[in-house]
């Protein structure tokens, strides 16, 4: 993939996508488990 072209080039059709990736499913799963543990600790108090 190439970077965004300078403004002087032609007006051809292009498809763009972000360089950055969304958070992975694994990272989100870990966050969810941590949140559940936190909520369960809160409920026990």
């Amino acid at each position, binding site marked *: 993939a190439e970077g*965004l072209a300078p403004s002087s080039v032609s007006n051809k*059709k292009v498809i763009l996508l972000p360089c950055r990736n969304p958070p992975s499913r694994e990272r989100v799963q870990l966050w969810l488990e941590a949140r559940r543990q936190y909520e369960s600790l809160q409920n026990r108090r």
Partner: protein
Amino acid sequence: MATLTRQDLNFGQVVADVLCEFLEVAVHLILYVREVYPSGIFQKRKKYNIPVQMSCHPDLNQYIQDTLLCIKPLIEKNDAEKVVVVIVDKDHRPVERFVFEICQPPLLSISSDSLLSHVEQLLRAFILKISVCDAVLTTNPPGCSFSVLVHTRDAATRNMEKVQVMKDFPWIVADEQEVHMKEPRLVPLKSMTSDIIKMQLYVEERAQKT
């Protein structure tokens, strides 16, 4: 009935606001319905007067917001031909593409104040179609992720570069591998025609997902 051009009433901005709000809801719902993320991160919210599933994961929500913030100036200038939510497998090959084909009429006919509520009704129908689309699609393989692509023109990218968030959220021209899908199955979901937006949504699904 008054006929206005795109320059009147900051028309492009209104359309971009309406569409980006809709796309945000649609992206969350696609990720939920197609099980890209665990269902536990989604909570029921009310949008367009119907319940929808929206993520409560802060990083994911920020990612979707940043993505749409960058696309917004393109929609505002009528430079976004398609916005595509691509679901990719663990090898980053597309398995499904939710294609939002957008077209804005050059002239706007305003008949009453109910214009936006009519658009809201039409957008609600899109959301309802997305929420049941798993019935017409096959199950995705485990380990999928997603990306949002925008089909535009070279010169229009200048509008994107003006957005502040672009500095921390840069965009690149997509590789063929990231967009191409061999002989996909086409599933039309919904189309709408209103005074301010014409839009159709279809899914391109890879024949062999595993």
